């Protein structure tokens, strides 16, 4: 229901898409795909070699790329079209930053996790 409403709001706006904004989204999405690919290879490394450090690395990479980007994208879309109150922007940014931090913490920890 909310998604349908969001789509009807977005569609008319497609005619006057800001190319810079579109490029930003495209590059962010491409980065997410690449990040997911690396995270997936790390996960395969964990599965194939029973490596603990690869498990943490894959969790960290997926948090850092896919989760963070998806949260940022969905959140900014909700804010942009007024589904979230504007004064939630601050706390929302904090959530995204926290996710980034947790992702990096996982990667840092994976450096020290013994296989």
């Amino acid at each position, binding site marked *: 229901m909310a998604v349908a409403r969001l789509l009807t709001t977005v569609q008319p706006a497609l005619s006057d898409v800001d190319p810079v904004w579109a490029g930003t989204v495209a590059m962010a999405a491409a980065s997410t795909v690449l990040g997911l690919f690396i995270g997936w290879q790390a996960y395969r490394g*964990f599965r*194939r*070699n029973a*490596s603990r450090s*690869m498990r943490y690395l894959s969790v960290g990479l997926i948090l850092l790329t896919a989760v963070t980007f998806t949260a940022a994208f969905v959140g900014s879309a909700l804010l942009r079209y007024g589904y979230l109150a504007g004064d939630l922007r601050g706390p929302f940014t904090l959530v995204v930053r926290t996710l980034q931090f947790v992702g990096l913490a996982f990667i840092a920890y994976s450096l020290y996790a013994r296989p």
Partner: protein
Amino acid sequence: MLTAAARVDHDRSRTDRAAATGGVFSRRESDVGRLLLGHPHGHGVREESSLAEVLDLLSDEYARAILTETSVEPMSAKTLSERCDASLPTVYRRIEHLTDCGLLDERTQPRRDGNHHRVYTATLHRFSLELDDGEFTADVDRHESDDGRDDVADRFTRMWEGL
């Protein structure tokens, strides 16, 4: 095949001339039965074993059973001991020899309970022995099931763990 090898052992006068060569890493040696088990993909250098060792292994009933079972799917030593009807120490001894000769490959797999166990896969594809003009030529073809070693995920793991 086995009788041919045995005959060489008895006939010392011929042993000096006989040499076994193997695949890509072929070379001639005066001590009989020496061979380098050539690897078709160039990983063979580490796998230097004697012809006698390989023949010994292949004449062993348990070693052959381990190879046949693991040629179908990767198996743990415990499963092998049940399937081959052999004690665990016997299975481990054969596994060690087979791995040393490069006929068996070992890998660790995670289990649901969080532990991981080692599983084994047969790498042996074909073993051939040729006697021609006073020279034995032994060849071991291996499956590409060394494949896993070169997987990007495995290289990534080695790289990351090596940091």
